């Protein structure tokens, strides 16, 4: 693995790692790590830094839905154009082109069931090239971006002399 993949692997797990700490952990010089991170930000290899949040433990508990969208691509426009018309709404958290039984997987987060339903019926379904939608609400999140929501975090190892 090269220096970029090494840095990205670490940042993907903990975006707060500084170049200094990454340098210590990997043995690469700090200046080189800092330069690579800056370059990757500029080249949009690194797009954003965020946190994995368990919103249920807060006063804001948004509803998340997966929407399967089937579409007929328009002549000369392909899927990208219609995808763009959908993912440009801020409610859309993720949007993927899929193989298989449907075309776009759209992940929406919004304040309530109603607002999600309204978004689908008013924003997505009416689009000319959309053939159908199927909305699935997420009931419980167990794991997201490699992170478990209820991890066993206690170190319960017995202090044995080994």
């Amino acid at each position, binding site marked *: 693995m090269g220096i970029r993949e090494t840095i990205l692997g670490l940042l993907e797990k903990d975006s707060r790692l500084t170049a200094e700490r990454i340098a*210590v*952990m990997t043995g690469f010089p700090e200046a080189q790590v800092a330069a690579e991170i800056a370059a990757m930000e500029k080249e949009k290899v690194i797009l954003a830094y965020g946190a994995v949040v368990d919103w249920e433990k807060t006063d804001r508990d948004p509803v998340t839905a997966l929407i399967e969208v089937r579409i007929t691509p328009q002549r000369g426009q392909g899927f990208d154009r219609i995808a763009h018309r959908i993912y440009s709404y801020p409610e859309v958290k993720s949007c993927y082109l899929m193989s298989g039984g449907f075309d776009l997987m759209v992940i929406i987060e919004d304040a309530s069931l109603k607002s999600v339903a309204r978004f689908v019926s008013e924003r997505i379904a009416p689009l000319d090239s959309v053939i159908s939608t199927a909305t699935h609400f997420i009931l419980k999140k167990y794991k997201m971006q490699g992170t478990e929501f209820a991890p066993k975090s206690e170190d319960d190892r*017995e*202090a044995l*002399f080994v």
Partner: protein
Amino acid sequence: MNPEQALSRRVRSIRPSAIRRFFDLVNGMKDGAISLSIGEPDFVTPWAIREAGIHSLEQGHTHYSPNAGFRELRTEICRYLDRRFALRYDPDTQVVVTVGGSEAIDLALRALVDPGDEVVVPEPCFVSYLSCAVLADAKVVTVPCYAEDGFKLDPERLRAALSPRTKAVVLGFPSNPTGAVMSRDELAKVVEVLEGSDAVVISDELYAELTYAPATHCSIASFPSMRDRTVVVNGFSKSFAMTGWRIGYACGPAPILAAMNKIHQYAIMSSPTTAQYAAIEALRSCDAEVAAMVAEYDRRRRVVVDAVRKAGLSCFDPLGAFYVFPDIRATGLTSTDFCETFLTEEKVAVVPGNAFGGPGEGFVRICYAYSIENIEEAMHRLQRFTAGRIK
């Protein structure tokens, strides 16, 4: 009748170690304390392995296995050792599945030693070698390994320790407690010395998977002249994070393994069946999980070595296991004083090096099988601790 006096002289000769008191202190530590003292992986066993154990229970596999272990597991062990370390063994005659590497060490010594035979043990070393040798009625001859040599075994010092009565030499590389690894070239010089004796090598390779670039593990049994006189001890505890499953194995010359299996058959019967099913899965499908754990250990290792040096302690680059073994003499404290004071003042537990034998005095063992957050906080406290003490 006095039960104390009913005890054998052998068992009485093994004193409860002073280190017990230290670990009682550690177990009594309250909030805010950080232990870097326990020599076992912090990782939970990879899920695929746990799942295989659960599945075996669902299928009702709750009976004894053959004494030497399921043949399927012995076959996987042979494939694994060949694939990873170029070691070839016959699953039917040269492998015994044991209750951890611990049992394998005990079996090997008991199978080889007659009263008064000498067993050579390089120090500092894993604590059970000496006691198991004593329990097998051996006369223990220790060979010191020094920081100047990166705690590797010096061939000339080994030569001086060998005698016509030497029955076995116990090697433990990658090393607990020092993290030292011996390269093929370095082992070649040890092999040359051993070729001049009839000693059997008991090679404890439990940390074989845990080496860090540029080091790789070389088994002494991979030297043609050593193959028929080495018992390789290995297991799942460290490499697959399976300490609690209690499973390991020994491989080596058929007559020695048959003798070990004889003792195992009467003392143990067979290793835990659930653990054996889990171990089969570990060897078949968990290379990626092992690689990920090794990569994480390597990052922690670098953090500890860097911090220890910044704290003013000298420390050779340990390329194996999950221990760093810094020299604490610059603080003016003994190993024991250092650890007790560090524990009371900064609430961080590390282990005094002399607990692993005389040459460990002046050193402490820091285990990095802990989360990086704990390690970083402990290293911060270490720097605060040494700041006032190093002139």
